[in-house]
């Protein structure tokens, strides 16, 4: 079931997103929000130079970011590094997420994308982060985009499917909303903003737009689908802003790793520093936070 296209107007969308991401978050709420952000984090490394050593470091950090700090939700890596991540994270409760479908462009033959997905799942990936074919979407071949999502979902054989829309390439709020509705109808388990590989990624207005699509889908079908923000969330302040936005648009129940993720590489540093500041009353430096 695909909803008819929804029109979107920028002025009030951005105004509302601005109010929601500027809530004043203090004291216990701030500490709690930091914990939520860590517990919903997909700690990510997606570089051409990623190596088993780097992935092992990331995994160790995801399991135990700092003394007394809870684990992240998942580690997100390229599909060829899934075995290393599976090995490191076994028994930790931290999930393994693999990007797939010729991430980040998505411009490979369909059978290559499906094979990559199947092999990642076979290697132990709990979650697949696929990219949609933006070229097909912008050329108006919507059913092709939807069909590809359906096939990748099949290839996941039970693994969680996150669908990356690459919002920065879609050109308008209305197109982003359309892509959300399409991916939801095709069976996405999570909508994900972006690859993190282009300049424009998560913005408050885009996140709000995606929340609205998720909320309408839940109202129409009863199904709760997750939201993953990726790219551009680098500070505790912006992460807390997104928590408010999700809380007030989708409800408190969305603020758990089953329904919400922040994909990030550097955000964790700031979260740990802000946590330390809240607990001790003074700022420490990055030298006091163990990197990966």
């Amino acid at each position, binding site marked *: 079931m695909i909803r008819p296209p*929804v*029109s*979107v*107007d920028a*002025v*009030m*969308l951005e*105004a*509302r997103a601005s*109010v929601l991401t500027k*809530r*004043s*978050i*203090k*004291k*216990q*709420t701030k*500490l*709690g*929000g930091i*914990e*939520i952000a860590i*517990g*919903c984090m997909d700690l990510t490394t997606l570089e051409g130079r990623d190596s088993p050593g780097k992935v092992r470091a990331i995994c160790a950090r995801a399991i135990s970011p700092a003394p007394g700090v*809870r*684990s992240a939700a998942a580690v997100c890596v390229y599909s060829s590094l899934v075995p290393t991540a599976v090995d490191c994270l076994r028994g930790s*409760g931290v999930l393994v997420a693999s990007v797939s479908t010729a991430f980040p462009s998505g411009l490979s033959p369909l059978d290559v994308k499906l094979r990559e997905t199947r092999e990642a799942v076979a290697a132990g990936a709990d979650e697949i982060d696929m990219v949609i074919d933006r070229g097909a979407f912008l050329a108006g071949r919507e059913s092709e985009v939807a069909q590809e999502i359906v096939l990748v979902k099949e290839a996941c054989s039970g693994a969680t499917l996150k669908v990356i829309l690459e919002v920065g390439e879609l050109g308008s709020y209305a197109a982003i909303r359309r892509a959300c509705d399409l991916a939801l109808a095709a069976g996405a388990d999570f909508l994900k903003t972006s690859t993190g590989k282009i300049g424009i990624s998560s913005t408050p207005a885009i996140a709000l737009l995606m929340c*609205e699509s998720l909320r309408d889908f839940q109202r129409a079908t009863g199904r709760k689908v997750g939201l993953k923000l990726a790219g551009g969330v680098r500070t505790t302040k912006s992460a807390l802003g997104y*928590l*408010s936005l999700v*809380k*007030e648009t989708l409800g*408190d129940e969305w*603020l*758990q*790793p089953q329904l919400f993720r922040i994909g990030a590489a550097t955000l964790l540093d700031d979260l740990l520093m802000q946590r330390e500041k809240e607990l001790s009353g003074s700022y420490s430096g990055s030298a006091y936070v163990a990197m990966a």
Partner: protein
Amino acid sequence: MATALPAFDYAPSIETTPVRIKPRYEHFIGGEWVAPASGEFFPTLNPANEETLAEIAQGDAADVDRAVRAARKGYDKYWRKLKPSERAKYVYRLGRALTERSREFAVLETMDGGKPIRESRDFDVPQASAHFFYHAGWADKLEYAVPDGEPRALGVVGAIVPWNFPLLIATWKIAPALACGNTIVLKPAETTPLTALLLAEVIAEAELPPGVVNLVTGDGRTGAALVDHPDVNKITFTGSTEVGKRIRRATAGSGKRLGLELGGKSALIVYPDAPLDQAIEGIVSAIYFNQGHVCCAGSRLLVQESIEDEIVERLRARLETLRVGNPLDKNTDIGAINSRMQREKIAELVQSGLDQGATLVQSSCELPNRGYWYAPSFFTHVQPTYRIAREEIFGPVLSIMTFRTADEAIERANNLPYGLSAGIWTASGQLGMYTAQRLQAGVVWGNTFNQFDPSSPFGGYKESGFGREGGLAGLRDYLC
């Protein structure tokens, strides 16, 4: 999996900027604080907790006369002789001072009037300083505002302002009056005089020549004395249509210029192709901004019949997310009702809606025990003949009605003696323009609401008043 994540409930985040409130305020006349001739004072309350903030002087005809004479002297002796570029500097200085002390003004506005600190901080005070900056720029360029003649000041302006935007509407009048070379006597609203009195302190510190800005506080009697004073050249009034009519009668034949910004019952028109989520945000801004204490509030929602259920359902859900409570909490969306009297007026009109057969939907939010509060509400099943469809409620209560065609929506929107503002939601540019051209309203917003700028004139049709404030049109109202 690890233990459950904590709840994300907002801890109170109270704005703590200190503000000094004197126990008692006198009139500000001729650059000095002057005791009221009657010796009478009355309290101004914090409507969120009913505590007295300060004692305010009750002005009578003698006080008003003293203020008008001071304004006349200020005009003759200083202000009219000043080079326009020097006048500009003073007006600019007031904008600067407001900006520098913006947090203090915001806190005081919230304490005295009940509006959320987020609004006073992000809307009222920045808009107020923007009006000074905008008009400072005009002061030495007035010949471009009046291309056919030589722009001349009117003389002494008498300004009477309401309690919903006490500081902002005061600056809507002070800034153009001063920039055009007039002096002014301002009468703030009885329930919300404190920010105007703080502005008087700022004016004194800015060393404006004595008598250029004078403040006389008090109730309706004080305002009437100002309206009746023979040496006032212009009366500018923002408030109810009822009082506006009285002022018009009182000034008829007196030679006084008159500008009136009065009541409204503005229509919001939502077409079926509208961006619905943004329409909901527009509706929320239109009716719940400042607890609905807004003359241009969009208090009649006209939705196309095919989307009525969807709009009502979305609005019902959105209502529950509005955060009602302590106006000084930075996360509060809806603050306190301005006064007990206003609270009673809202309750009376809501009762009439129930009695006439409309269905009331209210937020389930908890209201504080002390102070004046009203839960954000809307009515469905409203017929155009009901009182709640025709009378200004001036509170957080919306009346929802339906229409079938664009022409019917336009006809319904225009079918009232008011005409202050309107809002249209549609994805179609031509339908938006078709509608806007046919609405009798001073401001028509498209796919948004309550957007203000000092360069954009504001004012009404029909019983919503005449004259404009802001922009070129507003400026000309302070020149002859």
